[in-house]
């Protein structure tokens, strides 16, 4: 296909392709280098959070194979339930540590407000997803959490359409709507990081902005 058709070809597909390539050139989408300041263990918690999310989805997927009551009667099912619980603890733990790091890096600088916002909303959505998970355990904890939480939600009117006492509704929110929402938010969040790059260091107080040292002729080898 000629370069001209590539650039100006008609149709929705070509438009989407052009926009995608312009926003995410392949070597920016999947780079194999990072700025030298990306050299701290604080940078691993984003990917740790995403990995934990995948394990949450995977263990949840196994639970769906045999249904919501399986884990009460089966030892293996109980083990899978345990993996689901602990992957959630890891997910929330890594996410919060990631959030602490990003806050202290003021990572919203350089027009990265949407990256912060998608991250913050993901956190809130995750709290909601975990909440619906606790509601659908079908044990004493679920009964208590439901009958308590209803008061908070009812007091502001939300309970009129989000009934925490309705197991069927809560289960569907937990396994369909909320994971989808979190997944989408994570995708947008990661794409924004790829698009804008990892935020540069804050300038030290005796400087205006970090002046990147003149690029050497070869990248620093690790």
């Amino acid at each position, binding site marked *: 296909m000629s370069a001209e058709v590539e650039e100006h070809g008609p149709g929705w597909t070509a438009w989407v392709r052009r926009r995608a390539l312009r926003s995410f050139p392949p070597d920016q989408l999947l780079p194999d280098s990072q700025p030298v300041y990306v050299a701290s263990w604080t940078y691993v918690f984003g990917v740790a959070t995403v990995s*934990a999310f995948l394990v949450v989805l995977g263990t949840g997927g196994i639970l769906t194979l045999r249904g919501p009551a399986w884990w009460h009667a089966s030892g293996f099912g109980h083990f899978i339930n345990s993996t689901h619980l602990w992957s959630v603890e890891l997910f929330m733990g890594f996410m919060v540590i990631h959030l602490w790091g990003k806050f202290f890096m003021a990572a919203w600088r350089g027009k990265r407000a949407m990256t912060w916002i998608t991250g913050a909303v993901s956190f809130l959505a995750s709290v909601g997803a975990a909440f619906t998970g606790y509601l659908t355990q079908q044990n004493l904890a679920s009964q208590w959490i439901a009958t308590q939480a209803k008061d908070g939600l009812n007091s502001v009117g939300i309970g009129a359409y989000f*009934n925490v006492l309705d197991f069927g509704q809560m289960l569907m929110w937990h396994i369909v709507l909320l994971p989808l929402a979190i997944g989408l938010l994570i995708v947008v969040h990661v794409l924004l990081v790829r698009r804008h790059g990892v935020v540069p260091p804050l300038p030290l107080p005796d400087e205006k902005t970090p002046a990147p*040292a003149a690029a050497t002729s070869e990248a620093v080898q690790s």
Partner: protein
Amino acid sequence: MTSLARPTSSHRALDRDFEPWSGPKRPYDLVKEFTVALVVVTLLTVLLAALFSSPDEKAVTLGGWANAAPNDFVATAATELDGTSGSATYGAPYTHDKSAAQKIGPLAPQNWLGVTTPIDSVQDFVVRPLQGVPSTPDLTNALKVWTGASADQQQKWAAAYDDALAKAADNDPAQVAAGDYGPVPVMLNHLLTLAQSGGLDGALLAQGRFYQTDYTKPLLFIADGTYLEGLARDQHLGGDQWGMMNETGNYPGQAWLWLYTFWYQVKPFSTSGNADALVWGVMALLSAIFVFIPFIPGLRSVPKFIPVYRLIWRRYYREFDKPTA
């Protein structure tokens, strides 16, 4: 000027934080990092699950409740019948009493979406389940007397019995003083028998349908009593015990709810009848602030004033960020 704000158009300052990085880079294998992270997290999950398992305290049934605490069951049923139970006096979304709603200042959002899950505590929790029971002559008669009486008379009997039960030693129906309670004692005694046999669980859930996934009615009835709350408080799950964060046994709970539950422990929330609405309002505001930190002056400058960043990027500052002469 060291500023964390986006440059305004009047300054037309170059936002160096936005410009693509032109400085030195280092090799970084993203796919390998992701793969390692996934494997490590999976192994960690399996290890934690094998070491600690997960809690599973059995749910309370109406049958279990009625057998373990029959006096509490009958006392609760009496409050359903005279309309003084938590469910019966709740307001939206269960009943039509607009004055029952919690308020945030002058606003009562509890009422805005109306009654979407109507509960009639008399019919739903007592009369209809009893009407489904294969009857004995005394129950048939009691129900006939009840349904034949005026609403006022029904209320008189139910309220009188509720009061008498409250005064009886240990709320024991056998210790209730003599009085004019109409068919109420017989009805509640049959309801207790129905519950103890397990039949009330089915009756409250089924609601005339075969398939059912909505546990609203059984849960509201159980929560109107004190038995479930007693079990919960034993496990430190009560609202004033920071219970929202806790889990049964020795397990970690939803630790991330710490700020949500905190407000319930302190005044004015801890002594307010509007605590739920007020706490929700506060948390909604704080959540909005959290989401929009990048735009909030002062808050967005905190990282500059608590300079953790100098530790995070210390190697960069030392090796690459040489001040210009």
